[in-house]
């Protein structure tokens, strides 16, 4: 019978079917970070359990790590305690950790694929909702809670019910300068933040095939913002080229064997989906969010909406609240909105391609005088080193951007990098919720090129035709 990509990978991981329709699903890889793991390790200790397979888990601190002044260590006591707890737990339970100061350290979702720790067809979990990122490699990847982190450590399995599967096809050629981020925001704008609830989403179509691996990761990363816990893209040459030669990728005989298996990781031609959506690549213009939910998004050529156009009372209420929080009025052209800060980073957009795109815009320009801070935060130590070897750090610094150490940083403002109340930020992260980047802070989600352009102009601007 014809199968979807999701079904193929799912079936390969069913250890046992339960009576209530759930299954015991085998987990190939668990990524671990400092915030959601301490109680899971403590749970193991209290119950006297050991990890089922400690080499299936890999850890790195990211959420809380400082991005400047590393020579002083972590000055925030809570953050320090969590990072030290991670070090001690990994030591005690024999789990490999890329510690602070290791060039391989960084945001879990950047580090996993970069190290070849995430491979096509794997099941991947992490105590973090943006684990959907790894679906770009045709993996079933999802975020889980702390109890489940412990469950996976102890059993290498998870009790799961199979979600429905939706395919979103983006057909045609993407216009130049349109990135994975614009595609992600456009899709969320079309289907809404609950559009994917209960589904695993497969992204397909010629526009998706044309995306780089980085762009695909950006897209799958934001699947969770469309309400779906899983996003996936079939294996093709782009996937294989990306994986080949990574430190933990197979080599020799086994590589050949793996590639043969991975070539099967696509939906069969006549596979049936629970839902299917078709979008046209040509319709996509650089996107900017205006409100406090990723679905409150418009093209840079557009304006904030008119309350009159709200489809019901709930949306009217949501928009009014968003306008008040964001300090914006109806029908304001996006290109007229001035900003205070710029953040280029996060597991959505802190990979080398993102920095190349931002640097191409920033090159030879200066950050506008009304912009108080423009920061670039690499997704990992290796991304940082790569960017520096290409001279991107110099371009950023000459333009007036700050070049930081790797971590989650101002994506969630758990460390010192944050917005003050009412500060407006062009951000390449994934969530524009109230208070996400600091209490009262106002976030606009954009692509790296759009963020860099906003930094230079001091307000949002269309990057198409940038000189």
């Amino acid at each position, binding site marked *: 019978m014809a199968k979807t990509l999701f079904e193929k990978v799912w079936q390969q991981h069913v250890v046992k079917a339960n009576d*209530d329709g759930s299954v*015991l699903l085998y987990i190939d890889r668990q990524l671990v970070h400092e915030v959601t793991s301490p109680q899971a390790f403590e749970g193991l200790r209290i*119950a006297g359990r050991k990890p089922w397979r400690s080499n299936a888990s890999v850890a790195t601190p990211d959420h809380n790590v400082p991005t400047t002044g590393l020579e002083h260590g972590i000055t925030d006591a809570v953050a320090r305690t969590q990072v030290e707890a991670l070090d001690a737990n990994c030591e005690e339970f024999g789990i490999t950790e890329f510690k602070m100061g290791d060039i391989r350290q960084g945001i879990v979702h950047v580090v996993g694929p970069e190290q070849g720790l995430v491979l096509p067809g794997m099941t991947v979990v992490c105590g973090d909702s943006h684990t959907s990122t790894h679906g770009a490699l045709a993996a079933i990847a999802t975020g889980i809670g702390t109890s489940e982190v412990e469950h996976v450590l102890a*059993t290498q399995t998870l009790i799961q019910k199979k979600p429905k599967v939706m395919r979103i096809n983006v057909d045609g050629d993407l216009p130049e300068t349109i990135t994975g981020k614009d595609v992600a925001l456009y899709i969320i704008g079309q289907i809404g933040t609950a559009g994917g609830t209960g589904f695993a989403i497969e992204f397909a179509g010629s526009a998706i095939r044309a995306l780089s691996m980085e762009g695909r990761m950006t897209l799958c990363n934001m699947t969770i913002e469309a309400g779906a816990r899983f996003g996936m893209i079939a294996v093709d040459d782009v996937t294989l080229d990306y994986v080949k030669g990574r430190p933990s990728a197979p080599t020799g005989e086994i590589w050949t*064997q793996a590639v043969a298996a991975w070539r099967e990781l696509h939906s069969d031609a006549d596979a049936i989906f629970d839902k299917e959506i078709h979008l046209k690549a040509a319709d996509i213009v650089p996107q900017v969010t205006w409100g406090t939910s990723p679905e409150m998004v418009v093209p840079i050529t557009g304006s904030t909406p008119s309350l009159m156009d709200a489809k019901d009372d709930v949306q009217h209420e949501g928009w009014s609240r968003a306008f008040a929080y964001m300090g914006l009025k109806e029908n304001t052209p996006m290109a007229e909105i001035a900003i205070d800060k710029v953040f280029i980073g996060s597991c959505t957009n802190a990979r080398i391609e993102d920095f190349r795109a931002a640097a191409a815009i920033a090159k030879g320009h200066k950050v506008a005088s009304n912009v108080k801070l423009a920061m670039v935060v690499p997704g990992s130590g290796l991304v940082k080193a790569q960017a520096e070897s290409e001279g991107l750090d110099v371009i950023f610094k000459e333009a007036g951007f700050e070049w930081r150490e790797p971590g989650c940083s101002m994506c969630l403002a758990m460390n010192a990098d944050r917005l003050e109340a009412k500060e407006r930020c062009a951000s390449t992260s994934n969530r524009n919720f109230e208070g996400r980047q600091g209490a009262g802070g106002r976030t606009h989600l954009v692509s790296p090129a759009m963020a860099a352009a906003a930094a230079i102009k001091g307000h949002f601007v269309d990057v198409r035709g940038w000189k």
Partner: protein
Amino acid sequence: MQAFTILNGLVVPLDRANVDTDAIIPKQFLKSIKRTGYGPFLFDEWRYEDVGQPEMDCTHRPIRKDFVLNQARYQGAKIMLARENFGCGSSREHAPWAILDYGISCVIAPSFADIFHNNCFKNGILPVILTDDEMDVLFTETIATEGYKITVDLESQTVTTPSGQRFTFEVDDFRKHCLLNGLDDIGVSLQASDNIRAYEKERKQSAPWLF
């Protein structure tokens, strides 16, 4: 996980509806890296005059004398009565951790918020749902009688008062089985250890790059 079979214990009445998880354990305690030690901070804002901070010594903090948990007659309570929608709000698992750490392993209410209800079972707490009328009987008798103890029997799914009045409650079979045997989800999954090993053995052959 501690098994739950029959519990005979002192009852404390928390006569409030919609008690959210932020009231059960305020957000500053989420910074802790432990799952134990939350008992002294259970209902922190309602129990104390000052604002609690993780790891602080609670023995000399000024308490709010009128809050039920602070009344001498309810010290050592093992069962808590509550009103509808208990445990609503954020999904933090710290809420059941705090209740258990305090010494309560059964909460009886007319309804519970979903995630909290689920999290109770994962942590060895029995959430019992009774009707409003039955709740009224329990609240009235608890308040009227110092040292009021009831018996909660999971096997027979009953709550019995000192006068012999008996109420029955529903519980999902699988959850019941786990609690009776002290099996958390992990314990249950580990019963399939042989299946997991067999699966791994096969996969090592067919997909060696995964190991």
